[in-house]
């Protein structure tokens, strides 16, 4: 096979992997939007906060150390213990559940029945709050996240595919971390689907997504569902935070991954979990292939950011409700 074609296949495979990572972020948005119609601007900051908490717990950091030291003149930084990764992940998940409960109790409860834009705005306030709160709690410096995920390319794949091409081809490159992310995402989606199909709470969640009022009238507790949904979104944020943070370390920029999820959402529709996955894959492959074929050779590179939106725009012109979005029916 000509090398150029092999490279295109390699770019496509890596695009699919990147798409899975985008979809992981988008999934959190979809969960909350589906159940409560809220576009949760704070999703990215939640991923950052979850990752920070995970690292903080793992390394036995004292929360609010800087504040305590500044106020009381002490010098505390670490508890001096080290928590195993699995336990730390579980504890962080608990923190995210607590967070969901607090959000419901002190913010959402007071905004029931408000227009979408108001709820969107409330999540902006939440994002600001958490950005400051997370930094205050764990410090703004960069932290290494180590939960034992593999790094580096897969040598096995490289060696066993090198024969396909000529001199200039080393074999396909795929990041091991990306493979893990793909498996985790698949498990996550499968368990989410199973949860919403086969458990009582899951069915209640779908009922609320379908119709708030009707669900209320048959005795589903809206408040419980909201806590549940925000907890799930918090858990998805934690997973996304781990996957992205493993590569770059945990730092402020982690909250900006939400921007990568926006075109995915627009393309896949805000209300569909399969939409988030398919949308992520299309965006991932589309932007990587465009950069490979046109962006880098002819336009000087760095085209991925805008091309993702252009691609989404192209799809929307033909399907204004997104790929998997619910059909918009307009009545006068």
């Amino acid at each position, binding site marked *: 096979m000509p090398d150029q074609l092999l490279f295109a296949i390699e*770019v496509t495979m890596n695009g699919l992997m990147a798409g899975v990572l985008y979809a992981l972020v988008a999934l959190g948005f979809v969960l909350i939007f589906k159940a409560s119609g809220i576009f949760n601007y704070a999703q990215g900051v939640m991923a950052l906060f979850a990752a920070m908490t995970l690292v903080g717990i793992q390394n036995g950091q004292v929360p609010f150390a800087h504040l305590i030291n500044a106020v009381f003149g002490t010098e505390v*930084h670490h508890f001096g213990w080290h928590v195993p990764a699995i336990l730390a992940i579980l504890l962080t998940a608990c923190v995210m559940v607590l967070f969901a409960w607090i959000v419901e109790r002190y913010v959402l409860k007071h905004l029931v029945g408000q227009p979408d834009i108001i709820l969107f705005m409330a999540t902006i306030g939440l994002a600001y709050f958490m950005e400051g709160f997370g930094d205050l709690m764990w410090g*703004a*410096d960069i932290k290494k996240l180590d939960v034992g995920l593999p*790094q580096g390319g897969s040598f096995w794949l490289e060696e066993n595919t090198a024969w396909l091409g000529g001199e200039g081809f080393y074999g396909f490159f795929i990041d091991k971390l990306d493979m893990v992310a793909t498996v985790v995402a698949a498990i996550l989606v499968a368990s989410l689907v199973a949860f919403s199909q086969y458990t009582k709470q899951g069915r209640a969640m779908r009922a609320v997504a379908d119709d708030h009022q009707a669900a209320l009238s048959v005795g589903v507790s809206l408040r419980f569902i909201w806590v549940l949904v925000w907890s799930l979104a918090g858990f998805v944020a934690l997973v996304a935070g781990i996957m992205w943070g493993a590569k*770059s370390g945990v*730092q402020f920029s982690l909250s900006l991954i939400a921007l990568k999820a926006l075109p995915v959402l627009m393309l896949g529709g805000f209300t569909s979990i399969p939409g988030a996955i398919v949308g992520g894959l299309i965006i991932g492959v589309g932007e990587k292939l465009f950069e490979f074929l046109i962006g*880098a050779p002819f336009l000087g*590179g760095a085209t991925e950011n805008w091309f993702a939106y252009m691609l989404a725009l192209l799809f929307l012109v033909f399907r204004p409700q997104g790929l998997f979005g619910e059909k918009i029916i307009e009545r006068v």
Partner: protein
Amino acid sequence: MNMKKIAAASVAALMVGTPVLADLVFPSLSYRTGPYAAGGIPYADGYSDYFTLLNERDGGIGGAAIQVIECETGYNTEKGVECYESTKGQGALVYNPLSTGITYQLIPKATADNIPLYTPGYGRTSAANGKVFSHVFNFPANYWNAASLAVNHLLAENGGDLNGKSVALVYHNSAYGKEPIRTLEGLAEKHGFKLTAIPVDHPGQEQKSQWLQIRREKPDYVLMWGWGVMNQVAIQEAANIRFPMENFVGVWWSGGDHDVAPAGESATGYKAVTFHAVGSDFPVFDDIQKHVVETGKAAGAGDNIGKAIYNRGVYAAMLMAEAVSKAQEIHGTPDITAAMMRDGMEALEITDARMAELGMGGFGPAFSVSCENHGGPGTGAIQQWDGAAGTWSLISEFGGSDMDVIQPLIDADSAAYAAENNIEAGCN
């Protein structure tokens, strides 16, 4: 929302907020929050700790006490304006904003206000031409020196011949990242290597395309102009595609300890250009430990000492303190103004003997500044990361850069600025 109340309260806050005027005021436009905090924190700590050391150990400079006013910019130009305006009235001697964007913006303002700007290793490179930029100093080295130093290192590794080699530049797609391109193009022409520029958009969380491109094109060397999360991801991706780390050279802003730490041992061998020494093996750090950290006066948690970017902050503060001494000497008063500070900076002379006296022997080059040359000697060295030990070490001597290529570029860029802004060349 009662606007009047806010206005009244902010007036009150401002009144309360104005501290008692100290003798020597150094504003530190730092960023301990936001996307670039990881680099901003150690630098601000170093800058501030050195001045605290002088206060604690020597009682200030020439008998005048020093006051460091920190102002948080978050690497945001708008907050930078606010910080500049709020501190300039308090007798600020010199600004060191550690941000290319804020520097560009302050160049005309500070010049008009007669306050010098000090931008070591960042900011506007052509400010090295003191004839056009009377109030901006970027000694001892700038981006174009860095580009040349990196190429010199590659030349040294190849016995002085880069003909037919290929070099890729991975850069932050912003003003800062674009700086070295012209110099590298000039050098590529001179030495016959092939240059490919690969931009990475802010913030640089996702660089798969860029590194797959490098893996496909197999350049012999990769240079990097990165900042923030881009550095960590790039180093990790380079390790992932098994790019030989010894052939990967970053600019000094891609050479912090936090940049290589997330990649761990796989970053071993990664190199970066630097204009000052690394490590904590200097008497000055013992003094900082003793007089600043142990007395609880450190700006940060005291755990950054000896890190590359912390050292840079200390080095910048040291040069500024020396400039103050020089200004005091020229004008015969301990209580200097910003205008006098500018004279001191322009007459600054750093000797090896003086550096040793300060407990920083061999920390940086010996040089002197003149009215024409605000850029210093443009010397630097190469540092290399050892992942197992978790330390940087210098692997080359401090060497000069190729001014034959750089000087015409500096002259051309500063001439363009002078023409656009009707500035007449000074220093006559």
